[in-house]
C-alpha cells in the first residue's frame, strides 16, 4: 500500500496519530499545563504528609520533613488514635473492592456481551436498569439498607460490602463493556465457530481478548470508585469490614484539633494499592489492539 506513514523506531501509528513537529510542541505544551494542574495538589499533599503538627498550616515549601506521620499511621499509635488498624483496613478494602469488581465482571461480562452482541428484546431495558443503580442517591438507600442489613445479618460484613458496592461497580463494568461488545465484529466469532469451536470457546478465545482494553479500563475504574466510596462503608460497617477510606478520615481528629498531616499521609498510603493496580493494568490499556475487521 502506498501509504505515507512515517515509520520510526517508535512503531506503527494507530488511528489519529500524527507526527507534525509544530503541532507536537503545542500539544505537548497543552499536556504540560494539564499535568501541572493535575499533579501540583498531589505534590502538595506529599509535602503536607511530611510536615509536623506545628508546620502543617504555617509553612509552604520550606519546612523540616519528617517521616513520622507515615510511621504513626501504620503503627500502634495510629491504631490507638483511630481504634482501627490501618494496615488491616487496607487489606479489608482490597478484599471488599477486589471482590466487588470480580463479582461485577463475572456477572456483568455475560450480560454486557448478550446485550452488545445481540440486541435482544428487553436488552435495552435491562441495561438501563443496571445504569439506574447509579441514579439512586446513596443517602436514599442508606437508611433502608442499614435496617435490612442488620435484619439479615450482613451488617459490617465483607459480603455485605461486596453486594452493596455492586451499586457502584456493576453499572460501570456493564456499560463500558457493552460499547466494546457492540463494536465487536461478528465475523471473527463466526470464523471461530466455523472452525468448530463452541460458542463459549469462541467467546473466550476471540471476543474476550479483543475487548481486553475495555475490561482493563472497566475493572480499573470500577475498582477505584469502589475503593474511594465513602458513604456505604461509613454507615454499613463498624470495625470488621471497614474500608481504608473511612479509616483515613478518622485521622483528621476532632475537638478543635486537626491533623491534616496525618490525614495526608494516610491518604497517600491508601492511594498506593489502586495505583499499583493501575500501573499493572496499563499495558492492557496501552496496547492498541486494532482488530482487522473482515468486512462482509
Amino acid at each position, binding site marked *: 500500500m502506498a501509504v505515507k506513514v512515517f515509520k520510526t523506531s517508535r512503531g506503527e501509528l494507530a488511528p489519529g496519530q500524527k507526527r507534525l513537529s509544530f503541532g507536537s510542541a503545542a500539544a505537548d505544551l497543552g499536556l504540560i499545563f494539564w499535568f501541572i494542574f493535575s499533579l501540583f495538589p498531589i505534590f502538595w499533599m506529599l509535602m503536607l504528609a511530611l510536615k509536623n503538627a506545628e508546620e502543617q498550616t504555617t509553612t509552604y515549601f520550606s519546612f523540616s520533613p519528617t517521616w513520622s506521620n507515615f510511621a504513626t499511621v501504620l503503627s500502634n499509635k495510629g491504631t490507638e488514635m483511630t481504634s482501627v488498624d490501618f494496615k488491616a483496613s487496607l487489606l479489608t478494602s482490597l478484599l471488599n473492592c477486589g471482590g466487588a469488581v470480580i463479582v461485577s465482571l463475572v456477572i456483568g461480562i455475560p450480560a454486557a456481551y448478550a446485550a452488545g452482541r445481540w440486541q435482544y428484546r428487553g436488552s435495552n431495558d435491562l441495561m438501563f436498569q443496571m445504569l439506574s443503580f447509579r441514579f439512586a442517591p446513596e443517602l436514599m438507600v442508606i437508611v433502608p439498607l442499614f435496617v435490612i442489613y442488620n435484619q439479615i445479618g450482613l451488617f459490617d460484613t465483607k459480603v455485605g460490602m461486596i453486594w452493596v458496592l455492586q451499586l457502584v461497580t456493576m453499572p460501570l463494568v456493564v456499560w463500558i463493556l457493552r460499547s466494546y461488545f457492540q463494536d465487536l465484529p461478528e465475523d471473527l466469532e463466526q470464523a471461530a465457530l466455523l472452525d468448530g469451536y463452541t460458542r463459549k470457546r469462541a467467546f473466550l478465545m476471540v471476543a474476550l481478548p479483543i475487548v481486553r482494553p475495555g475490561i482493563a479500563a472497566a475493572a480499573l475504574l470500577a475498582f477505584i470508585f469502589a475503593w474511594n466510596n465513602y458513604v456505604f462503608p461509613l454507615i454499613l460497617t*463498624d470495625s470488621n469490614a471497614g474500608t481504608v477510606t473511612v479509616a483515613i478520615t*478518622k485521622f483528621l481528629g476532632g*475537638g478543635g484539633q486537626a491533623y491534616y498531616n496525618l490525614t495526608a499521609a494516610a491518604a497517600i498510603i491508601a492511594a498506593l494499592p489502586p495505583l499499583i493496580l493501575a500501573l499493572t493494568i496499563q499495558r492492557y490499556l496501552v496496547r492498541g489492539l486494532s482488530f482487522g475487521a473482515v468486512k462482509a
Partner: protein
Amino acid sequence: MSEGSTGPRMSRRNMLAAMGLAGAAEVGGGFDWRKASGSTINILQTPHPYQLSYQPLLKEFTELTGINVNVDLVPEADYFTKLNTELAGGTGKHDAFMLGAYFIWQYGPPGWIEDLNPWLENSSATSAEYDFDDIFEGLRASTRWDFTLGAPLGTGGQWAIPWGFENNVVAYNKAYFDRRGITKLPDNFDDFVQLAVDLTDRSENRYGIATRGSKSWATIHPGFMTQYVREGAVDYTFDGTDLVAEMASDKAVDFTKKWIQMQHEAGPTSWTTYDYPNATGDLGDGTAMMVYDADSATYPKNKPGASKEAGNLGWYAGPAGPDGNYKTNLWTWSWAMSANSRNKLAAWLFIQWATGKESMNKAVQGGTYADPVRASVFNTTFKRIAADQFGYLEAFETVIGDSKIQFTPQKAFFDTTQNWAVALQDIYGGDDAAGRLRSLAKTNTSKVNL
C-alpha cells in the same frame, strides 16, 4: 394512624420490651464493680482529646470490672450521621455513646436514649463514692429536660452524664499583646471589636478575631451565642403556649450587625468556611490574634510542639455584657446509653467509671483534657496542671457561675440553628440584617412549634 408498623424501629422496640431486658429497677444486691463481669459492651466515640485521654485508661476499666470494651470511632464530621442512622434503625449495637447536649433534644423524644436517673438513684447500681453532685450544676441541669415545649432545662430525665465540657471564652496571643503593650483586655463588646480591628493588618497576614462561620449550627453556639446572651438578647421567648423566635429583636439585630461587621473588618477572609479547627488553628499559627470559642480547644495548642504559637497563648473571659454579666454558653460531650442496649448494667458501669473521680483525675494529667466536669477534679488536679496557662483558670472561674446552655431547648434545634447560621452567612454576603433576621425569625417560629 398505623400503630408503628411502618417505622422500622418499632417492632424491635416492642420485642425488646417483651424480652424484659434489665432496666435499672431490676438491679439489686449491693454495689459491686464486678456485677456485670464477663459481658462485652460496644461504645461509639468520635476523635477528640477526651477520647484520646481515655484510650490508655480503658484497660483499667476492664481490670476493674471484668467487662470487655469494643470501641468504634467515627470521624467527627460524620459522627451524628452514623449515630442518627443507628439509633433510627433501632439496632442497639452500641450500648454507650458520646453525645453532645443538644442532641438530647433530638434523640430523647423518640425514646432512643435511656433515662439515667433510675440508675443514679439505684444504690445497687451506683457506687456510694460516685458523688453525682460533684459535677458542676450547670452541666447537670443542661443534660436534663422533660421535652415539653417551653419548659426549661433542668427538670425531667437525666439523659446523659457530662464527661468533658467547654466554656466559650476568648483565647489570645499574649506574647503579641505584650509586644504591642496591650495590657487592658476589653470588658465590653464595642471595645472588643475595636481591639480586633486595631490588631488586623492584612498586609502582614494578621487579623484580630477568629470565629466559626461555616454553614452549620456549630457556628452559632460558641462565641456568637455567648456574646449574644451577654448583650441581653434571647433566642426564643415562651408566651405560654408557643415559642416565639427573637433573632430579630432590636438587641439581637444590633449585636448581629456588629458581629458580622467585625468579621469583615477583623475576621478571617474565608469566614463562611471557617469551622472549629480553622478558627482555633489560626490562633496557633499566629495568624489570628484572638479566638472566641471553646477554651478546651485552644488549651492543647499551648503545649510545646503543638502549634507555632505554643507557649504564647493566654485566656480571658471575653467582654462582659453591658450590665457586666458573664453569661456563657457551654458545650458538653456526655455519655448516653442506648435505650435498646442489651447490656445496660455493663454500660452503666462504664459510664459511671468514665465520669468518675478517679479516671477523670488520671485523664486530666495527660495535659490535653479540658475542662473536667467535676468540681473536685477541677479544684485539685486540674488547677495544678493548668496553673501555667495564663489566665485560663481565672477565665474559668469568672464564667463558671453563669455557664450553662443558654439556648432554649426545642426539638427542632438543628434545623432552626442551621438556618440561623445561613442567615449570618447571607448578611455577611450583603443582605440587610434586620430584614434577613426577620424572615429567619418567622421561619423559625413556625418550625419550632410544629
